[in-house]
């Protein structure tokens, strides 16, 4: 193995680890919002590490430019897409998981949340914007 491949190896292995963490989180975590947290951060980091490892593996030629383009694109769009999805779920009023030891505690989402925010702030501007920025 050449020197560049030895540099690439730790990046690729770390990326594989973070992708594994993300997949385990997607399967094991209890509700949509925590699953979105697992995918949104861990998977983005794993993808970036693997792609950067491939840049080192290939050396700095024309294909590396395309890889860096993919790196920038994934770093911007992956969290953005998941943020959009999570905001849609929050506005639709999806249930939020609460620790069973905190019995009676509830997290308000969706129309209920908009109503409570309008009550506390005392004006209607939050309602007009749907309560979520």
């Amino acid at each position, binding site marked *: 193995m050449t020197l560049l491949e030895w540099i690439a190896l730790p990046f690729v292995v770390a990326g594989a680890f973070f992708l594994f963490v993300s997949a385990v989180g997607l399967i094991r975590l209890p509700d949509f919002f925590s699953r979105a947290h697992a995918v949104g951060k861990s998977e983005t980091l794993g993808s970036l590490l693997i792609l950067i490892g491939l840049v080192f593996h290939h050396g700095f030629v024309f294909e590396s430019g395309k890889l860096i383009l993919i790196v920038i694109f994934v770093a911007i769009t992956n969290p953005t897409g998941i943020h*959009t999805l999570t905001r*849609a779920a929050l*506005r639709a009023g999806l249930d939020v998981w609460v620790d069973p030891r905190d019995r009676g505690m509830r997290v308000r989402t969706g129309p209920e949340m908009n109503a409570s925010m309008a009550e506390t702030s005392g004006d209607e501007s939050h309602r007009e914007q749907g309560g979520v920025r």
Partner: protein
Amino acid sequence: MIQVLTGLAAFISLLIAITFYRVLVGPTLYDRLLAVGAIGTYAVLLLALIGFIYERPSGFLDLAITYAILNFVGVVAIAKYLDLDSQKSADAAGGTEE
């Protein structure tokens, strides 16, 4: 190094298989859509890896860029559509309450 990349591609295929569980079982529509987006990201990585394994990276990297763009546009479009839908029904419910 080719062996490492091949092993990584096999590992990512395995991750796609276990992520697909969430697409099939996921209790809500949003869970399924989240898992589909995750599989799309895995597919981008898989395309880049396949390009390097077969030592023809140029064409496969173009495919990976295209797939990343399509994945993002698809997820955002469906999420915005669902958002629009729930805002409409929320407005209707608020109108009857007040």
